Every structure is written in structure tokens, then in C-alpha cells.
């Protein structure tokens, strides 16, 4: 009788052992899934941040194209972009609220490839990830004596650090 009880006890212990092993597997599995989802969420948030910055730049009065006091939609003024560089240096705190840790530049690619105009550069020290966002945009030169201004095909590059 004693022997039978011992066997039953061993059986119970083995069942409990297997149960806990399965439980540990399940916990590890769910933790991994949650970590993966969290990483995807963080990456999506940073990408969203890039798009938000792109949206706020497109409505920035400092960069907007105007011809005879009328705003031309969907373009950035080259002269304003160059002027914004020094404005950002003087008012870093103001622009940090809008762009936080990021680098924003405009690369003209057609008809000519030119040096990029860096309008904001604030890299985060020891950043762990960098998410780039690129959008096509018009860069217009209103100093040329054409009716609409001569516009080039450019890329708005936004690198968001986290």
C-alpha cells in the first residue's frame, strides 16, 4: 500500500513538473510576442513622428512659397529654406518643440543635383534607432523672372532619432 502511494506521489510530482514546464513555455512565448509587438509599435510611432514633422513643415509659414502675397500650395521657397537655417540656430528651443530629435534636409535632384540644404539638425546623443522618412516636394526659386517661379524636384529627408 505504501509503495502504491509512493508511485502515485511520484506520478503527481511528474505531472506538476510537466505542467510548470508548459506554463514557463507559455509565459516565454507570450513575453516574446509582446516584446515583438512593442518594438513594432515603437517603430510605427517613430515613423508617425516623421510624417507628423513632414506635415508640420509643409504648413510652416517660414518655408511657404508666396508670389505677390499669394501662397502657392505644395512647394517650398528656396530662399526661405536658406534663411530658415540661421533662424533655427537662433531659436533652437522653439523649433525643438516642433521637430525634437531629428535632422531635416532638402535635396534637390532634378533638373540639377545640388548640395542638400540642412534646415534642422539635432541628433540625439546615443540614439538607438534612426527612422528615415522621405517625401517628394517642389523647391521653387522665385528670384527667377518667371510667372510661377522655376521649381525643381526635391526630396524632403527627415531622420527621426530615438
Amino acid at each position, binding site marked *: 500500500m505504501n509503495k502504491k502511494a509512493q508511485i502515485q506521489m511520484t506520478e503527481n510530482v511528474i505531472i506538476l513538473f510537466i505542467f510548470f514546464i508548459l506554463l514557463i513555455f*507559455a509565459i516565454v*512565448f507570450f513575453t516574446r*510576442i509582446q516584446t*515583438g*509587438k512593442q518594438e*513594432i509599435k515603437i517603430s*510605427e510611432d517613430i*515613423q*508617425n513622428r516623421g*510624417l507628423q514633422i*513632414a506635415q508640420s513643415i509643409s504648413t510652416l509659414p517660414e518655408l511657404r512659397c508666396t508670389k505677390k502675397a499669394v501662397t502657392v500650395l*505644395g*512647394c517650398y521657397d528656396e530662399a526661405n529654406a536658406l534663411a530658415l537655417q540661421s533662424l533655427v540656430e537662433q531659436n533652437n528651443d522653439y523649433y525643438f518643440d516642433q521637430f525634437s530629435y531629428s535632422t531635416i534636409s532638402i535635396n534637390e*535632384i*532634378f*533638373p540639377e*543635383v545640388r548640395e542638400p540644404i540642412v534646415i534642422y539638425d539635432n541628433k540625439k546623443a546615443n540614439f538607438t534607432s534612426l527612422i528615415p*522618412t*522621405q*517625401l*517628394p*516636394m*517642389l523647391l521653387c526659386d522665385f528670384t*527667377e523672372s*518667371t510667372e510661377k517661379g*522655376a*521649381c*525643381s*524636384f526635391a*526630396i524632403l529627408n527627415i531622420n527621426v532619432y530615438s
Partner: protein
Amino acid sequence: MFTHKKAQIEMIGLAIIVILLALGMFFIAKFSLSSDTGNEVQQGKQQQISTQFLNTLMSTKAGCVGSSATFTGLLQEYVSESTNLECEGGLETYFRTSVKSIFNQTLDVWQYKYNLTITFPPQANKDPISEGPGCARYDNSKTQYFFIPTDYPKSIVLELRLC
């Protein structure tokens, strides 16, 4: 009687194990399938790029000799067969080369698949222009249109499919 009861209990135990395994499999399937579905941010970005790309392209200065005409003006000239614009290699060749160069520096680098199709009014007797590697039939894509008015009753239609 005693063995009969024990067998029943063992059967219930087995049934519980099967139910637990089925539940486990269900959760595994659910999590692994849901992780890949629909990246909204990516789709939003794709939409924004396709919209901005066409609008930007068609307002860009084409760079033809001694003219500030845009690509919109270039295509209008191409359809009307007038000879006001002087572009290297002719209007169609110049347009194709320029657009290819822009694609090479943008969508190709950003690793998007795309297809730009331009159709002209039937009265113009021009073959459609198509550029880009194209999308597979079931690719998740965003399509953007741009219309250019002409002297004919119909417009030039640009269709950019990004995937």
C-alpha cells in the same frame, strides 16, 4: 467497478489535455497571423508619397533649352505637336529619360515598386507611355491620377501605381 471509474477519470484527463492543447494552438495561430496584417503607417506613407510624387513631378521645371516649361507643359506640347520647346533628343525621349532619372533617385532607392502610365487623347494618335518595373497583381498598392487639359476634348491621364 473500481477499474471502470479509474478509466473514466483517465479519459477525462486526456480530454482536458486535448482541450488545453487545442487552446494553445488557437492562441499561437491567432498571434502569428495577426502580427503581419495591415501596417497602417506604411500604407499612409505610401498614399502620401504617391500623391505628392505626381503633383511634384508635373510642376517641376522640365529643363528644356531656354525654357522654364514644366513637365505638364512638355506633355501638352508633345500632344499638340508644336515646336516651341527644344528638349534634348525630342520631347518623348527627353520626358522618358528625365522621369527615369527621377525614379532612379527616389522610388528605386526607397525600394518601392511602381508603374507610371500616361495615356493621351485618341485624337492625338500617340502611343501610351509606361515606365517602371510594375506591380504584381495582388500587391497592396495605392494609385494616384493626374489630368492635364489639352486642345482636344479629352485630357492626358497620368496614373501612378505605387506598391
